């Protein structure tokens, strides 16, 4: 119950609109590199990619170029939304999986199953979280 509440709070707090797709980590972080390269060199020189870079953005964001500010909000929101979806998919979709899939959840078969069922058959929350994982598009590319 507490976990469910935290999940809801997490979704409510995300800056990305609920219908938006999350980006792949590669696309997200290369947008950041492109839009913020100069600002990173100026305000975050020597700061490693990782938690400290985000802290540096938080501390210096107001001084950075508008394009960088806008991009980094969208990029970090997308990354944390995708990471949360990948972490929580088993819990969020447990009822759907029990109903639709003949498998234990949280392994590769889960994705095969969720891809194979019609999106309309999934509960709204499970469908959204599954979209956010990016695994539907990842699977389609293979």
């Amino acid at each position, binding site marked *: 119950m507490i976990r469910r509440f935290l999940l809801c709070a997490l979704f409510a707090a995300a800056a990305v609109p609920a219908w938006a797709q999350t980006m792949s*980590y590669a696309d997200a972080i290369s947008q950041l590199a492109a839009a913020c390269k100069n600002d990173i060199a100026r305000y975050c020189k020597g700061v*490693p990619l990782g938690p400290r870079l985000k802290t540096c953005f938080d501390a210096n964001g107001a001084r950075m170029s508008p394009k960088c500010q806008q991009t980094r909000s969208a990029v970090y929101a997308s990354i944390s939304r*995708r990471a949360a979806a990948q972490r929580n998919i088993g819990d969020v979709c447990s009822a759907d999986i029990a109903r639709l899939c003949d498998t234990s959840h*949280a392994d*590769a078969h889960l994705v095969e199953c969720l891809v194979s069922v019609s999106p309309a058959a999934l509960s709204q929350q499970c469908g959204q979280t599954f979209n956010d994982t990016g695994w539907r598009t*990842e699977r389609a*590319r*293979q």
Partner: protein
Amino acid sequence: MKSHRCHAVAALVLLGAVTAALGQQQINSSQMATSLAGVSNTRLSLTGAQMRQAVLDNIHNYPGTLPPRPLTFPQMENMAQFVVEVDFDFNSAVIRPSSYRTIGSIADALHNPILLGYGFLVIGHTDSVGGRQYNVGLSQRRAEAIRDALIDPFGVNPGVLEAVGMGEEQLRDPAHPTSGVNRRVQLVNVGKKFCFGRSGEQFVCP
């Protein structure tokens, strides 16, 4: 699992061809994931600590400006793996923005469901510029910087990643020890680490 195995072999062959033909060309996250998937069901019988010790022993037993003989780990040759180039600031463990995409691609690959529960070594290699002992420390810090970024912001489970610095003990091109091709990062699948029960609970595989 069988089809994954075929894919992985194909991807490794492809990787060799692509690297040879295009030099700097990097592989994408799908290719990384298939390169890391299911070639072998065995777990690597070698720990990060043993590898770090072997590196120090190699420097101690075979001293010289360059390693007189490359350090080899035969156990690792059959493990699923790939190699990428990552740009760091000079003499530093700070990843350059030009390589952010590569780190993001590794994160995409490690989150691929076919790799769920597997453990990975992140192995850093330097060229021969600088002392051998120094390069071990530098490559260790660089491998750790990649591990740190994969964990936060990209959400990879810290329990599946171990960083190891090889220094210059495994030059890729010993004839040109200062060449950029020697500076690289190797990702190795060390086998299943976490297993999942019927109700999705995660535990360390027996």
